[in-house]
């Protein structure tokens, strides 16, 4: 009898595209953990994060990077954050990375398999995104280290600015193909 081994596959098969100066790369090794704190538990959580990861708790719309530079905390809403870090299946459950450190100060949920992540970058990335993104992405309004949760083409999207011309965009895996289609089509429609 054969021994079968399950191997996890990227949602979009590791999609990569370079078109009209806009690069779209699926992020296939991203661990995502949702962290929520109890009512009035912000201070206790902030203390445990400072101790464990050497960063402060971001405000809503803010992003904080751990002192190791490998972990990003996104402030999505009052009392809730998403933590992003590099992670591959061989490393075990992504949840343990966060949960063991935070103990009782937070409620943690593994979200890694629920989101498809695309790094969209290039000089014309903002030109492509302004067609589908209702948020003002101008650098003066949406600087590096800002996150927003919004909709694009009716799909819920979390968008983070990771560089002057670089964005990380996350949407539900269940509609990953539609999400990719929305972005690639918007890039294709760039006329500049």
């Amino acid at each position: 009898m054969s021994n079968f081994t399950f191997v996890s596959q990227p949602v979009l098969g590791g999609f990569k595209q370079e078109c009209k100066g806009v690069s779209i790369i699926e992020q296939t090794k991203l661990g995502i953990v949702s962290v929520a704190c109890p009512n009035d538990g912000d201070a206790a959580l902030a203390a445990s994060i400072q101790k464990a990861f050497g960063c402060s708790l971001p405000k809503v719309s803010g992003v904080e990077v751990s002192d190791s530079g490998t972990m990003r905390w996104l402030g999505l809403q009052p009392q809730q954050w998403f933590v992003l870090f590099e992670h591959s299946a061989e490393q075990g459950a992504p949840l343990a990375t966060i949960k063991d450190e935070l103990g009782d100060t937070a409620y943690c949920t593994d979200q890694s398999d629920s989101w498809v992540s695309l790094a969209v970058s290039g000089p014309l990335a903002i030109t492509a995104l302004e067609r589908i993104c209702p948020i003002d992405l101008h650098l003066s309004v949406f600087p590096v280290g800002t996150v927003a949760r919004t909709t694009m083409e009716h799909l819920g999207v979390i968008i983070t600015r990771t560089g002057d011309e670089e964005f990380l965009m996350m949407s539900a895996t269940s509609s990953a193909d539609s999400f990719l289609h929305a972005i690639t089509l918007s890039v294709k429609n760039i006329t500049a």
Partner: protein
Amino acid sequence: MIINHPLLGPRDAAEFVYLGDASLINRPDASSDDAAQAFYEYLYLRDNPAGEHKELWYHEQGDRSWLVVTRNTLTHEISKVEIARDVARAAGGSA
């Protein structure tokens, strides 16, 4: 229509879901003697003002917050946006 979210800044109304009159926050006390009458009024009796109206909006495609939006029903002008939790707590609620 743009709703100027207190935490996030201006957001398109398409990101929100409308619930209704903000008086829905003030749920009657179920243990009071006149609870039946109070709940009848709470559920069924609504003002329908032509002008300023306080209403509940939910930021479903954003930070999932409930907001109390003061909107003029004639002009759609929004004069005030507050976090519903703050409004409820200021009124003595436990939200």
